[in-house]
């Protein structure tokens, strides 16, 4: 059996996170996150370094490649390997996102083709982190087309959270757009639905008994505490409740249009919102770790 562990989980998490951060700023730049936004820069700036750092971590998970790093260049060779696709996608994304970040840094308008190319590559990066696992028939728990769906939605959600967090601390002008909470509400809700569908597909038996045993590990057995506590409660249901309340209270604030009141609300909401973004990140990392740790081979290597 394989030896993938923490490093791979963190790598998959960072790949999605960096891609999601890029897409958050891209969405903000395109006006999808409200008219006044401060999210249109920081996501771009952090995306390439995050993905590059993740890829760098992966090198430490290699055996012979760590001792003879020149062999790594050959990882561009096999076009039927999803890992090779990933090497291309990640390299391209890191390059394009660096160029885009450079323009943002210099406060210049990047050519539209760069921004759009980056967005497409970001989506590809997020999807790749799921595809890498989804194509492995030897691990029935991973071998599901819903795997990349879950990872992509989680990437968007964690990316938006990270971008909001960094914007809070590093951007001079602060804005709290209702739109951001609404979008994030949609993302978290979609992730819950996707995750539920993922488990439903497994318990429908379409991936065999081994996949069910993996799923049991998460739902009721050895990994159930981090699953329910860190992923479901802290990472998903908590943020869902918060974004739901915020979308509501913002509606009320708009109705009463009591400036003092809403300023107060947004102050308190601001802190909870930061905690909430942190919780989304914790959930995202937990998700990757749990999926890696729950891998069971289709055959355990002994005669029954």
């Amino acid at each position, binding site marked *: *059996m*394989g*030896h*993938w562990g923490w490093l791979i989980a963190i790598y998959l998490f960072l790949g999605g996170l960096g891609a999601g951060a890029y897409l958050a700023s891209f969405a903000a730049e395109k006006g999808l996150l409200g008219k006044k936004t401060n999210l249109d820069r920081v996501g771009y700036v952090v995306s390439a370094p995050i993905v590059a750092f993740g890829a760098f971590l992966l090198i430490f*998970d*290699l*055996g*012979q*490649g*760590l*001792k003879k790093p020149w*062999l*790594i260049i*050959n*990882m*561009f*060779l*096999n076009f*039927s*390997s*999803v*890992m*090779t696709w990933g*090497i291309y996608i990640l390299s391209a994304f890191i390059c394009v996102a660096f160029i885009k970040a450079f323009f943002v840094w210099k406060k210049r308008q990047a050519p539209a083709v760069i921004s759009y190319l980056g967005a497409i590559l970001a989506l590809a990066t997020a*999807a790749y982190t799921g*595809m890498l696992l989804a*194509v*492995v*028939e*030897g*691990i029935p728990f991973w071998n599901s*087309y*819903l795997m*990349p*769906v879950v990872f*992509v*939605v989680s990437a968007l959600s964690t990316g938006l959270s990270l971008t909001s967090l960094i914007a809070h601390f590093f951007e001079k002008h602060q804005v709290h757009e*209702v*739109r951001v909470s*609404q*979008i994030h*509400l*949609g*993302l978290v*809700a*979609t992730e819950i*639905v*996707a995750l539920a569908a993922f488990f439903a597909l497994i318990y429908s038996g379409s991936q065999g008994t081994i996949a069910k045993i993996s799923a049991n590990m998460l739902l009721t057995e050895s990994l159930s505490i981090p699953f329910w506590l860190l992923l479901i409660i802290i990472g998903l249901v908590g943020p869902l409740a918060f974004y739901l309340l915020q979308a509501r209270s*913002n*509606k009320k604030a*708009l*109705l009463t249009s009591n400036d003092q009141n809403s300023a107060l609300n947004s102050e308190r909401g601001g802190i909870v919102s930061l905690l909430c973004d942190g919780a989304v990140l914790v959930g995202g990392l937990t998700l990757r770790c749990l999926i890696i740790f729950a891998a069971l*081979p*289709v*055959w*355990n*290597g*002994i*005669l*029954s």
Partner: protein
Amino acid sequence: MSPNKRVALSRRNLIKGGLLLGTVAAIGIMPIKVLKAEETVKENTTAKTKKQIGFSYDEGKCIKCESCVRICQETYQWESDTPWRRLLKNDKGNALSMSCNHCADPACAKVCPVKAYSKRDSDGIVIHDASKCVGCGYCLYACPYHAPHIQKKTGAVSKCHFCYNLQDTGSGPRCVGVCPTKALTMGDMKELSQKGNLDYKGLPSSKITNPSMIIIPKA
């Protein structure tokens, strides 16, 4: 437009957006799956090698002496916890001597990013070139039979290569040669597949990789 209406509108948009996103994600991923399926089908019909040799194991003849495992270790000096060949046994008295199955659709070769695996067209042997391997471990997950292992000393994968070097000079693989009862033999898969398959005692479905190995269970 009243503020209330604006919010309501954007919430509706939000739900629509969420739905759209979900559908896009699902539709976006489906073709990949379909593509993959098509690819496998194509491989099964066209990318077959000219000839495919394989192992045959007759459980009734095996006396569980483990000579096959021992000669393999002595010849190729693999570390004991990363074996090329194993004699699997259960407490009901069943046994199976197994190595890499030189599958017709080798999952290892498909996933290896550096193309360390190659499948010979002349006989279908799957050979792993350790000098190329970066030790990423992807093939360890992909192979359903636990055939590739990462050797601790080198950090590279190694696995059975059907003694291709010996076969090229006209002799057979060591394990087959040493088996005292002819329980472990080799042959052309065209004939062997008439006699059996590898779907036995909890082993993974042979549909995944099309292994070139059959087991003849004891009566």
